[in-house]
C-alpha cells in the first residue's frame, strides 16, 4: 500500500522530458489524427445542431413571416416580445400557449405514473423465475417501442376511431365515447356525473374568472377524452422500454438477498414492498425523470392522431410551436415557444444528471474504498 501511494505523486508530477517525447514520438500523429477522426461528426453536429439553434434564437427576436430570409440586416426585430407575449399579453397566442401547457400538465400527470407502474408490473411479471416463455412475453411488451410511431398511431386510430375498442366495450354493455373526437374534460365529466357542476353551464365563479387567458373552469377541466386516448397510446408504447430498464435493475439484485428474505418468511408482497422497491429506488428515479423529459416532447402522436384537436384539447407545446411556424408562418413566435420548451426540458435533464452523477460518484468512491481496503488486507496477509 505504501508503495502505491508513493508511486502516485511521482506519476502526477510528470517527467517533462518523457512527456515531450510523447508528443513527437510514437504518439506523434495522434494530434492530427484525433482531429481528423472527430471532425466529420463534429462538423455535422455544428451545422445541423449548434448553428440551427443559434439561427432560431435570432429568428425568435424577429417578426419574420417566412418571406425572404430572416438573416438580413433590415429585418424588423422585436426584442423579447415573442417571449413576453406568451406570458403577459392577453391574446390568442397566450391563450393557445397556456392551453398547451394545461394539456401537457394533465398529460404528464397521467403518463408518468401510469407508464412507470405498468413498466414495473411488466418487469416483475416477466422476471418471475418460474415463468415459462419469458422471452416471448418480454418481446411482446417491448415490440411497440421499436416500431415507428406513425405505424403504431395508425393502429390506434383504428382501435379508437375505427370502432374496434367500442365494439369490445359494447360486448360488456358500455357505450364508448367518440374517443379522439371528444373534447370533454374528464374532471368536468366527473363533476357533471356527480351533480356537483353542470359541464354545459359551469359555475360562474370558475367560468368568469381566470388566470393567464384561461378561466379556472378551463384550467381545472382535466385531460379531455381525446387526450386520454393519446395517453393510453403513449403509455402502451413506451412502457416496454422502461420495462427493460427495470428488468436490468432487477437482474442486478443479488439472488442472495431474495433468498434471505424468503427464509425470513417474508410474503411476496412484503418482499416487493420492503426489499425490491427500496432497492429499485434509483431506477425508479431514472424512469420517472426520463418520463418527465419525454412527456414534454410529445409531438408525433398529436400530429398524426388529432392535430391538436378537438377544441385544442390535445395541443402540446411542441406541436403548437411547429404549427406557429409551419402553418401560421409566425416563425418568431414558434421559435420562442421552442426555446421556452427547451428551457423546461433542460431543467429536468440537468436535475436528473446532477442527481445521477452524485449517486454514481458516491458509488465509485465506495467501490474505491473497498478496493483499497481489500488491497491493504491482501498486502497484510501476504
Amino acid at each position, binding site marked *: 500500500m505504501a508503495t502505491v501511494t508513493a508511486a502516485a505523486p511521482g506519476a502526477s508530477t510528470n517527467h517533462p522530458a518523457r512527456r515531450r517525447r510523447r508528443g513527437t514520438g510514437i504518439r506523434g500523429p495522434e*494530434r492530427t489524427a484525433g482531429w481528423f477522426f472527430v471532425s466529420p461528426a463534429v462538423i455535422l453536429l455544428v451545422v*445541423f445542431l449548434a448553428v440551427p439553434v443559434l439561427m*432560431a434564437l435570432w429568428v425568435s427576436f424577429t417578426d419574420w413571416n417566412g418571406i425572404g430570409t430572416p438573416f438580413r440586416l433590415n429585418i424588423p426585430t422585436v426584442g423579447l416580445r415573442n417571449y413576453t407575449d406568451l406570458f403577459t399579453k392577453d391574446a390568442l397566442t397566450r391563450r393557445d400557449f397556456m392551453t398547451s401547457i394545461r394539456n401537457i400538465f394533465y398529460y404528464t400527470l397521467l403518463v408518468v405514473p401510469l407508464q412507470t407502474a405498468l413498466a414495473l408490473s411488466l418487469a416483475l411479471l416477466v422476471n418471475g423465475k418460474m415463468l415459462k416463455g419469458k422471452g416471448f412475453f418480454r418481446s411482446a411488451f417491448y415490440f411497440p417501442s421499436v416500431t415507428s410511431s406513425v*405505424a403504431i398511431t*395508425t393502429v390506434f386510430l383504428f382501435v379508437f376511431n375505427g370502432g374496434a375498442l367500442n365494439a369490445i366495450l359494447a360486448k360488456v354493455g358500455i357505450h364508448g365515447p367518440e374517443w379522439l373526437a371528444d373534447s370533454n374534460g374528464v374532471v368536468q365529466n366527473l363533476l357533471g356525473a356527480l351533480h356537483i357542476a353542470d359541464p354545459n353551464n359551469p359555475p360562474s365563479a370558475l367560468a368568469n374568472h381566470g388566470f393567464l387567458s384561461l378561466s379556472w373552469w378551463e384550467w381545472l377541466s382535466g385531460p379531455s377524452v381525446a387526450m386520454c386516448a393519446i395517453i393510453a397510446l403513449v403509455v402502451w408504447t413506451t412502457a416496454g422500454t422502461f420495462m427493460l430498464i427495470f428488468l436490468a435493475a432487477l437482474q442486478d439484485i443479488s439472488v442472495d438477498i431474495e433468498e434471505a428474505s424468503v427464509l425470513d418468511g417474508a410474503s411476496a408482497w412484503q418482499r416487493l414492498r420492503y426489499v425490491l422497491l427500496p432497492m429499485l429506488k434509483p431506477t425508479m428515479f431514472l424512469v420517472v425523470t426520463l418520463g418527465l423529459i419525454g412527456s414534454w416532447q410529445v*409531438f408525433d402522436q398529436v400530429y398524426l392522431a388529432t392535430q391538436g384537436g378537438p377544441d385544442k384539447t390535445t395541443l402540446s407545446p411542441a406541436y403548437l410551436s411547429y404549427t406557429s411556424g409551419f402553418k401560421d408562418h409566425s416563425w418568431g413566435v414558434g421559435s420562442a415557444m421552442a426555446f421556452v420548451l427547451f428551457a423546461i426540458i433542460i431543467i429536468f435533464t440537468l436535475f436528473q444528471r446532477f442527481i445521477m452523477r452524485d449517486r454514481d460518484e458516491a458509488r465509485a468512491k465506495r467501490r474505491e474504498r473497498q478496493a483499497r481496503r481489500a488491497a491493504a488486507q491482501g498486502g497484510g496477509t501476504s
Partner: protein
Amino acid sequence: MTATVHGSRVRRSDAPAKARHGRSFLAVFLGYAVLVFLALVYLVPFLLQIVTSFKTQSDAAAHPLSLIPHPISTKNSIGRLANGSSGFPRALANSVLVTVLVTGGRVFLDSLAGYALARLRFPGRRVVFGAILAVMAVPGVVLLIPKFLVLNKIGIYDTYPALVLPLLADAAGVFIMKQFFESVSVTIEEAARIDGAGTFRLFWSVVLPMARPALITLTILSFQGSWNEFSQVLVSVQSSQYYTLPLWLGNLVTGSLGAGTQYPLKLSGALLATIPVALLFALLQRYFIRGANEGAVKG
C-alpha cells in the same frame, strides 16, 4: 458439519413452506392471468392490424373485431399499395435509401469519433466530449424550426441531402462508441502500433473488427432510428417525391380522406412499414435490448 447446517435449515422452514405452497399456487395462477391479459392487450392491436389488411373496406367498418376477413381481399389494401400511383413504392425506395445511407454513415463516423475521444490524445478532446454530452441533452422536438431554417439557408430544403445529412449528426452514437472503446483493453492496439501501423490502418483493421458487438448495437439503433424517423424528416422535405414511409403514411393518415374510411389501406401500409424492423427485432433481439439500456444512460 455441512450436514447439520443443511438439516436444520430444512427443518426450520418446513412448516411455513406448506402454508406458502397453497398461497403461492394462487399467486402463480393470478400472475399468469394478469400476464395473459396484458399479452392480449399488447398483441390484439397487431393481430387486428394484420387481419384488417385483408378485409374489404365495408367489412372492416362493419366488423372491426372479427378475426376472419370475409371476403378475403387485398384489392383495397396491399393491392393498392403495389400500384405506383399510391406513392407507396416510391416512399419505400426513399426509406431504403435514407436508412442505408444514414446507418452506414452513422456507424462509420460515430466509431471514428468515439475511438478518437477514447484513445487519441489531441488538444481540445475534453471540450469536444463536453460539447457532445451537452448536445445529447437537446431534445429533438425543439429542433424542428431550427432544422428547417438551416436547410432553407443552405439551399437544400426539399432535396435528398436534406433527408440524409441532418440525420447523420448523432451525438448519442459517438458517446456509445467512446464508452465501448474505453471498456476494451489497449494491449492489442499497442502491439500493432509498435509494429508500425498508422492510426487509420490501426483503427480500420485492428480496432473495428474487435468492436463488433458495439457496431451491431449502433447499426440497430441507427437503422431503427432512421427507418422510423418522422418529425425530423417532416421539416426537411415537402414534395411527395421525397416522402419516406413514415411521411407517406402520416400524409395518408392525416389526409382529407376522412377518418372513418380506408382502414385496410392505412393498416396494410403501416404493416409493411413495420415488417423490416420486426424482422430485425426477431433476429437480433438481444442487441435491441442492449441498445435500449444504453439509450437510457444517455438520458
